[in-house]
């Protein structure tokens, strides 16, 4: 136990904790939006499309997440606009952007001269190497997500529950869709730093699935998802330290464990209530 306490003395560990907290806030909320609107596949598409941006940024020698953000937002907007037209099936478009991004990323990383040492950290994430810049951006994002969802909650509920009814009320449906897709894209990009492209989707879906076992209201689902995400991240970080395994994978493992525990707890609770 003293080993764990000692950890808190290290800057890299404090950074990791802060990153986990901020990622949980941003993804707990945007993930709830994604899950309830059934946009999980779309989020996977955005995540992988952003790899194209990372590749180009490596090639140009700029901040990789800046490239990722550009690719993520462009693909999100393409999907929002084309899903309204009949030119292409939305899932086909998502599949195309998904693989196109990976292809662009692979090509640019291949032609970048020299060894790219931290490519693995973008694929699988490494919360222990987050920088001051990453933390600042994560902080801005988490604040932005909280402010937008608090301010626009009635509109978000209305549009995500029944888009057609929202349009009969002349609510700005398309503006809401675009603003939220941009927030989702940015959350995905910042989470790449923590969990990696391969594992981002877990932050956006598993805490929400756990929370969904206990609540059926949008606002409480968001708050509970954030809490579960924080708990899971901290336990995962601890396990990563104790067993000396990669932090990203360890966090996802913890999320799944929490989900199974919650499911078991719930079914016992229902059985007890039925026997009473």
């Amino acid at each position, binding site marked *: 136990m003293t080993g764990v306490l000692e950890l808190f003395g290290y800057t890299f560990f404090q950074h990791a904790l802060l990153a986990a907290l901020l990622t949980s806030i941003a993804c707990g909320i945007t993930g709830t939006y994604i899950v*309830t609107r059934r946009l999980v596949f779309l989020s996977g598409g955005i995540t992988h499309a952003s790899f194209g941006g990372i590749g180009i940024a490596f090639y140009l020698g700029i901040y990789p997440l800046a490239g990722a953000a550009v690719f993520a937002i462009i693909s999100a907007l393409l999907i929002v606009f084309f899903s309204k037209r009949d030119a292409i099936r939305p899932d086909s478009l998502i599949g195309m952007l998904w693989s196109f991004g990976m292809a662009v990323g692979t090509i640019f990383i291949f032609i970048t001269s020299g060894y790219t040492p931290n490519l693995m950290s973008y694929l699988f994430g490494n919360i222990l190497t987050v920088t001051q810049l990453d933390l600042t951006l994560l902080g801005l994002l988490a604040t932005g997500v909280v402010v937008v969802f*608090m301010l626009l*909650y*009635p509109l978000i*509920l209305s549009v995500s*529950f029944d888009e*057609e009814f929202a*349009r009969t*009320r002349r609510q700005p449906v398309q503006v809401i869709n675009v603003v939220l897709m941009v927030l989702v894209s940015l959350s995905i990009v910042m989470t790449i730093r923590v969990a990696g492209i391969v594992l981002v989707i877990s932050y956006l879906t598993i805490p929400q699935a756990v929370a969904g076992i206990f609540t059926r209201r949008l606002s409480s689902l968001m708050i509970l998802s954030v809490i579960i995400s924080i708990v899971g991240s901290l336990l995962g970080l601890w396990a990563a330290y104790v067993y000396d395994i990669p932090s990203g994978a360890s966090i996802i493992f913890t999320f799944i464990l929490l989900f199974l525990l919650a499911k078991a707890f719930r079914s016992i609770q229902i059985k007890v209530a039925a026997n009473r």
Partner: protein
Amino acid sequence: MMTDSFMGDGPVLSAKDTENKQSQPRAPRSYILYICRYKAFLVETLISLQHVTAGYEGKAVIKEVNLDVLPDDFIGVIGPNGGGKTTLLKVMLGLIRPFKGKVTYSPALQGEKQFKIGYLPQWIQHDSRYPASVMDVVLTGVPTQSFGLYGKMARMAAMEALEKTGVADLTRKPFGELSGGQRQKVLLARALATRPLVLILDEPDTFTDQQFERDLYPMLREFNKNMAIVMVSHDLGIIASYVKTIACVNGGLHHHPSNMIDEKVLASYECPIDIITHGDLPHRVLNRHD
């Protein structure tokens, strides 16, 4: 102008007026005095469709349609499947833009916070796991500021709407767990929460039980005292006993000035039909032929 006037009491119509109003000879039975920002309007027509042609993907479903919705109307919209009933409603709601023609809304409908048309869809494409309570659903209809969280006033307005449709006891239930009839009553409460001057319903009883039908129509008659109602229905018995006028949609639109279903109405329906009788309860004498 003077040359067209004639002696006698009653309105003096100019030639120009008759030409414009040709398709709608009806006079409104009531008016709404609408006061907004120190201006008063006498509202005769809430929604007006003029020579509207509309449809999907460039294919017209309704052609050259004219229809006025007046403040105390209860219009039953009937017609064969694919005749354009839902298209007509979507044009009125502003969900699809007509290819040709004009849809005009009275200034009374354009409230400061909210567009005052309530809509009850046939069925909402709804994910039964969507995390919303009945209260949340009705709150999405309450005219409120778009910013911040819902306040006490909004909740009271939602509660009032739920009481009007008789489902106030369901407030805390998850919407996804309701039966078909309960869902429609909650969605009707959502439509009422918008404080509409026009209520538009698209075959509201398609996926519900008999109890819902028995509850719905007397409610609508009550609501009709304060708002115009436009309802698509497949049930001519309901049409005959509750609505005031009938609009037949089959590509074009014929608006019959009463709820009597006679040969003329049936001719525009172009389909053999159940026998209709009048009485306290709408009922069929014969079964449907299909």
